[in-house]
């Protein structure tokens, strides 16, 4: 660790007694924020439905302010090409967040251990002093990055899909790339049945028993704006694509893993994360059937699934 970063770390951790706490839970992963100011632990509106009572958490983040943040000094690992990049030091990862209005200088930095258990979120006073009420420490994409990375340590994965729970408890997961019809599918189902929509864009799937899988809603919704903290047993998975007629085809094990992987959110910068994601997806396709569903966007697409028996 460089001297600059070390000095900042020391100054940052001088006050370890946090007056304010907030905690939320997504996909079975709980995250607790600690900070000296109420605004340090404020949650963005999309996270409010996921707020839970403070207590023991899977991930603990200490939020604080530093006068300035020097450029990253660790080994570069991944450049997203967007608003964040990742580097690594001896025993931790460093996520830097930048914005065009601040130039190359990070406006916040997350230092976190390799198990994604404990971290320090450093807010840059030099950048953010003019945005005191605008900056949510855990605003997107940091919230999703945190959950996505923590999931690598658990039997779970985030998928690009909409999760729809029927009144009888059947949990259908429809996965698809952008434009494949997730939001359309959501609207069609809600117009026909009294269903619970866990999310119309991002679903977390995790093992909840030796032979059972559960799907969880997330805050990161799609066009239909469904984002629920609820969860349900996962019954079957459909890979959405536009087509003629409504045709359901069972996928082979390898096809199913590949199609799900292509619609997953996995940190690709570490091969072990990719390996563990593939192993978990094998467990998923062994536990629930996966189908390709070429559909036309009208209510017959829903009726097809309602009457579908493999």
């Amino acid at each position, binding site marked *: 660790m460089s001297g600059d970063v070390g000095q900042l770390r020391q100054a940052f951790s001088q006050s370890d007694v946090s007056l304010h706490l907030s905690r939320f839970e997504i996909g079975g992963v709980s995250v607790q924020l600690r900070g000296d100011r109420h605004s340090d632990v404020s949650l963005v509106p999309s996270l409010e439905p996921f707020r839970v009572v403070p207590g023991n958490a899977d991930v603990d983040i200490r939020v604080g302010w530093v006068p300035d943040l020097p450029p990253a000094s660790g080994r570069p690992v991944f450049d997203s090409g*967007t608003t964040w990049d990742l580097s690594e030091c001896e025993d931790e990862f460093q996520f830097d967040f930048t*914005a065009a*209005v601040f130039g190359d200088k990070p406006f916040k930095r997350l230092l976190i251990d390799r198990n994604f258990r404990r971290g320090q979120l450093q807010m840059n006073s030099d950048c953010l002093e003019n945005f005191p009420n605008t900056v949510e420490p855990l605003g997107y994409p940091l919230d999703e990055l945190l959950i996505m990375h923590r999931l690598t340590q658990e039997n779970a994965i985030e998928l690009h899909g909409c999760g729809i729970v029927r009144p009888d408890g059947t949990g259908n997961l429809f996965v698809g790339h952008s434009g494949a019809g997730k939001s359309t599918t959501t609207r069609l189902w809600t117009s026909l049945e009294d269903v619970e929509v866990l999310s119309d864009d991002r679903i977390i799937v995790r093992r909840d028993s030796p032979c059972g899988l559960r799907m969880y809603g997330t805050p990161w919704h799609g066009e239909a704006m469904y984002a629920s903290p609820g969860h349900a047993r996962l019954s079957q998975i459909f890979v959405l694509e536009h087509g003629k007629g409504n045709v359901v085809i069972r996928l082979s094990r390898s096809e199913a893993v590949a199609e799900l992987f292509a619609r997953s959110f996995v940190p690709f910068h570490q091969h072990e994360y990719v390996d563990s994601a593939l192993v978990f997806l094998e467990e998923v396709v062994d536990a629930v059937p996966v189908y390709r569903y070429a559909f036309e966007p009208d209510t017959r697409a829903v009726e097809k699934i309602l009457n579908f028996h493999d």
Partner: protein
Amino acid sequence: MNNEPKQAENKKPYAAPRLTTISLRPEEAVLGHCKTTTGTDQCNTPCASFLCVNVGS
């Protein structure tokens, strides 16, 4: 006891290897891309994650 016929019945029929192309979309898999400005810049505000509501994938 000879159980060869039973084994033969259980044996899966041979299927020739085939290549399937799976479409990966890095612009969707990497968090933080802007939903509005993908492809063309239609956004009039400076792009900063905490100022913009259009980031997503």
